[in-house]
């Protein structure tokens, strides 16, 4: 093939896979349509029918136009397909939001869609407490699907071609194979998620019934709060978030789900299929336990000085809950956003920022640096210290345990350190932009860590009145953080290559 033909073929291949993913997103709208029909929300039904039509036209249109393209994807094309899919899906999925009138502009609608897809949880929706049930279903379904990954969804149900599958799977920020075949891996991820959906919704619904909700409301709130917790998303159906329920039981069920939801799917799969000891041997679990305890100690020490949380139980419900919500990158809250700014001390906020940046596990629904990388970098540091204190002839071999024992090599450290640096740079960049618009530095650092780590806790910056450029910056860092940067750089590389030639 000539150079220009190759380029067209590559674009067509990327277009084909994007079309498949967008078709999948469109078909998902059948779920909120069903809920809206159930509650006779006719306006919402029409909004979603328009959205469904748009998604199918774009999705099937791309598949039809690109149908003859080769299915095999080069690495860069797989990564570009994954990252562009998320942007196109954002634009298409925002249509029902915008038509509903609950969002101030199309940008606000897209912000909330990206926040949902990336399991962040920051919101610009207005009058959330009077949102239609169909729209609430869509919000939470997006966050549930986004947690597992849209490509994982498409791989499980819509894409049968194996040649290109693995590259776009990795491009979406998941690089572990639970089973040798990538399609089976995607299906295993869905199996774990759907089993937990049933079990988690049941327990959350019981908690809802316990506090006096009607059966249908307890069911839908239970399912939505489960989706927000499991996907470490942080959306809840009421504007006061989990505080709305005023229930220790409701908070505890949600907390258990969000911690389990922040685990690596490889860990779930190992524990579920016989490798039970993995739960305390895995480097990520150990790393998470240590960093969660240390950052909570910072929050607890910071808050104990104020005397606001005067008993251990209140400290758990207000201090630990926000901390673990931030560390698992969920974003559920049991306090108002401005309480962080007005009541919390700088030490407590520093603990929160660190926890939000570290985040949950790799190959999970969570964001942030990830426990695996923090663990690897810590092991590498220990390794270096051992080398310094040992005789020069000594051979130091360091291992870490992740499903199996792995010898720590430079490539592990390099890859982990690189991603940590990229997250930190993006966080600093976002913080500077927010500071430029006049927000206090600590507030800006908190909110940007929340967006970058896909957390969703807010200190009050995220609001419909925030500057449009800051909304765009937060959309970009939510997207880049969720895809772990490499796929985003693949787009830049791809465009440069297309313009300059290779």
């Amino acid at each position, binding site marked *: 093939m000539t150079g220009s033909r190759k380029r067209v073929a590559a674009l067509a291949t990327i277009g084909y896979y994007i079309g498949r993913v967008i078709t999948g997103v469109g078909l998902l709208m059948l779920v909120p349509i069903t809920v809206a029909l159930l509650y006779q929300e006719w306006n919402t039904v029409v909004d979603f029918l328009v959205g469904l039509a748009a998604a199918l036209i774009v999705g099937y249109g791309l598949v039809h136009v690109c149908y003859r393209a080769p299915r095999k994807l080069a690495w860069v094309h797989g990564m570009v397909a994954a990252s562009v899919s998320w942007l196109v899906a954002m634009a298409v999925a925002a249509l029902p939001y915008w038509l509903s009138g609950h969002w101030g502009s199309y940008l606000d609608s897209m912000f909330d869609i990206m926040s949902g897809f990336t399991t962040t949880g920051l919101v610009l929706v207005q009058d959330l407490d009077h949102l239609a049930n169909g729209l609430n279903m869509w919000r939470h379904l997006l966050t549930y699907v986004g947690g597992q990954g849209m490509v994982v969804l498409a791989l499980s149900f819509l894409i049968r071609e194996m040649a290109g599958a693995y590259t776009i799977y990795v491009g979406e920020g998941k*690089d572990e*194979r639970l*089973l040798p075949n990538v399609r089976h891996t995607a299906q295993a991820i869905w199996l774990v998620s759907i089993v*937990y959906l049933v079990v988690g919704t049941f327990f959350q619904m019981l908690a809802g019934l316990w506090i006096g909700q009607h059966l249908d409301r307890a069911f839908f709130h239970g399912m939505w709060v489960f989706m927000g917790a499991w996907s470490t998303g942080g959306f809840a159906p009421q504007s006061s978030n989990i505080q709305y329920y005023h229930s220790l039981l409701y908070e505890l069920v949600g907390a*258990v789900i969000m911690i389990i939801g922040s685990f690596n799917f490889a860990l779930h799969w190992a524990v579920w*299929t016989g490798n*039970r000891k993995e*739960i305390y041997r895995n480097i990520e679990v150990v790393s998470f336990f240590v960093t969660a305890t240390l950052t909570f100690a910072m929050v607890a020490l910071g808050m104990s000085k104020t005397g606001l949380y005067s008993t251990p139980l209140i400290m758990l419900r207000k201090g630990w809950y926000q901390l673990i919500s931030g560390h698992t990158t969920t974003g559920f809250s049991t306090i108002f956003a401005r309480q962080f700014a007005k009541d919390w001390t700088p030490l407590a906020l520093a603990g929160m920022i660190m926890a939000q940046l570290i985040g949950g596990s790799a190959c999970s629904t969570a964001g942030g640096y990830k426990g695996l990388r923090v663990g690897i970098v810590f092991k590498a540091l220990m390794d270096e210290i051992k080398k310094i204190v040992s005789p020069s002839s000594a051979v130091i071999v360091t291992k870490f345990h992740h499903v199996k024992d792995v010898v720590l090599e430079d490539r592990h450290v390099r890859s982990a350190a690189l991603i940590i640096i990229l997250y930190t740079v993006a966080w600093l960049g976002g913080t500077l932009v927010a500071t430029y618009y006049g927000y206090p530095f600590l507030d800006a650092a908190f909110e940007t860590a929340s967006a970058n780590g896909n957390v969703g806790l807010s200190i009050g910056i995220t609001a419909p009145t925030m500057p449009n450029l800051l909304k765009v910056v937060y959309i970009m860092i939510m997207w880049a953080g969720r895809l772990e940067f490499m796929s985003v750089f693949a787009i830049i590389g791809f465009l440069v290559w297309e313009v300059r030639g290779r």
Partner: protein
Amino acid sequence: MREQLNPVRSWAGYVLGMVIEAAYVTVMIAVAALVAWAVMPR
């Protein structure tokens, strides 16, 4: 990339897996409760 082939796949195994995960989280909450108790001014 790590490939993992686990021989045991059963619903009972999945349930036990979920119970183990919930038990881990319970331990974690208990440790957090200890920390909360330790920092309380006396």
